[in-house]
């Protein structure tokens, strides 16, 4: 009883905000069980050398961290991850942002058509997308190669070429999420008061400025969501095409941090390493998120 009161004191629970806590309970329970517990377990595992089944776990302290951080491969993969992020940010954040702006603000016709059509691929699984693109982009036999062949062009052997593989895998991922991000941004831009845009148009402000200086800041609440989610996508969703198409190859050229963690855990069964990579990945992106909260959040425009 007294502890209950103590907890209430500590958490500052009163009649007005008690409901706030109550509303959070379902989320907290679920996350505690299915995310935080596993997370602690993983942190724990990162100090062991283990393959998850053998009865003996060897405590190795920080050696896994040392191994991972001294492995040049880690940095190659970090570089790949970064490349994925940059590519996806361009294809999946910048481009749909511009598209959404132009379609909503600039165009008068075919808006509905574009909206529906671009959204369509969102319904297909990335596995299917990966298979399809592997087929369509087959550098020798695919339809695209054949058409290119007519005009004497060759498709690069992307599955086995460093750089290209990341580009193509990013395209596959984008194909699925592009429309979704587009629709989100569209909704957000569409919510901006027309009169504000009209005022800018009346001042003969060039479209690119309207976009950068009015639309972007005013839709930044959704914008930042799409931005962060795109980074997540370049980590997590890229996984499927990597797994289906290239298994991280050639020679890790298409692996990213998550795939690599998967690779370590489920292909070569080095659970400790995998846990370590996961922890490092998380730490890295948490830092990013933290910076976002610290510095970007303040500049996001919220109505309240």
């Amino acid at each position, binding site marked *: 009883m007294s502890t209950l009161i103590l907890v209430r004191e500590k958490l500052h629970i009163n009649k007005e905000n008690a409901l706030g806590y109550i509303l959070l309970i379902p989320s907290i329970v679920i996350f505690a069980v299915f995310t935080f517990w596993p997370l602690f377990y993983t942190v724990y595992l990162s100090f062991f050398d283990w393959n998850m089944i053998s009865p003996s776990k060897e405590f190795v302290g920080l050696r896994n961290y040392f191994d991972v951080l001294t492995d040049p491969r880690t940095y190659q993969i970090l570089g790949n991850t970064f490349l994925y992020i940059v590519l996806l940010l361009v294809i999946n954040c910048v481009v749909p942002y511009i598209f959404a702006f132009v379609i909503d603000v600039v165009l008068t016709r075919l808006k509905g058509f574009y909206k529906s059509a671009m959204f369509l691929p969102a319904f297909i699984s990335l596995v299917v997308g990966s298979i399809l693109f592997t087929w369509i982009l087959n550098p020798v036999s695919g339809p695209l190669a054949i058409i290119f062949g007519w005009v004497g062009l060759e498709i690069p052997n992307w599955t086995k070429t460093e750089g290209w593989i990341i580009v193509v895998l990013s395209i596959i991922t984008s194909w699925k999420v592009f429309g979704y991000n587009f629709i989100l941004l569209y909704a957000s831009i569409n919510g*901006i008061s027309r009169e504000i845009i009209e005022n800018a148009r009346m001042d003969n402000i060039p479209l690119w400025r309207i976009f950068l200086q009015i639309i972007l800041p005013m839709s930044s609440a959704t914008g930042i969501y799409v931005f962060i989610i795109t980074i997540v996508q370049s980590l997590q969703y890229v996984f499927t095409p990597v797994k289906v198409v290239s298994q991280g190859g050639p020679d890790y050229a298409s692996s990213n941090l998550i795939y690599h963690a998967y690779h370590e855990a489920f292909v070569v069964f080095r659970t400790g390493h995998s846990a370590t990579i996961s922890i490092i990945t998380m730490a890295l992106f948490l830092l990013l998120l933290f910076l976002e909260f610290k510095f970007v959040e303040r500049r996001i425009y919220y109505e309240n």
Partner: protein
Amino acid sequence: MKINRTAEVTWHIIFFAAVILLIFPIVYALGMSFKPLEDAYNNVLNIVPFQSTLENYITLFDTLPVLRITLNTFVIATVATIFKVVTAFLAAYAFVYFDFRGKNILYFVLISTIFIPFTVTMIPNYLIVSEMGLLDTVWGVILPQLADAVGIFLIRQSMKNIPLSLIEVARLDNTGHWKIMKDIVLPLVRPAVTSIGIWFFISTWNEFVWPVLIMKTTDNYTLPLALQMFISVEGGTNFTVAMAVSVVTMIVPLALYLTFQKYIIGTFTSSGIK
């Protein structure tokens, strides 16, 4: 709002190109699902099959209890979606409209989970699900997928853009929180809720890594697992049947989308907040 004609035409060309790029693979998949495999290999350019055949679908329906599997998938996707959207909405509401200690930290912690690699949670969650005796059950597939902070994130962003005065008016009327949620906040964040709902639905619908682990019997399969059954590097993938599965997999979300398209797309344009 008008721009000059050439610019407009240029934009239309760009958008058409984009649409073609985005739609082509779908059309191609559709075409392929009606081709004999032989045709698929040898006539890659004809998107519409020379000789269309239903054989791929027949094979599929012969091999698997497709309806049953579709129903499983539907139940899983629907339950998960509803649950995720509701919890996310409630949490976002708490974060936006209540002031309590540790709010920002809690929010940050929850949001940061979207960066947790699934490799981290997979095995421990398998242990949990197994411990709960939920292996090979719908709930075993659903439960761990519920921990997804993306919804909280998006809905909160959207809620923060509702002018406070609208909530104030309602509060003056002594409108309870539940009613405010239902009648005012929800309609105003409908674009966010709809889009995250669609996203949840589609991603649970298409999820395969997790169900592969949990589901054992064919009767409990979900559609993406059915797809996996036709993919094999060693024996050669039966692309045309795989595409037939893909088409079947696509059909339900697509049908739902098309049915509610007016509403959904309408939602995205019904702004009016400002």
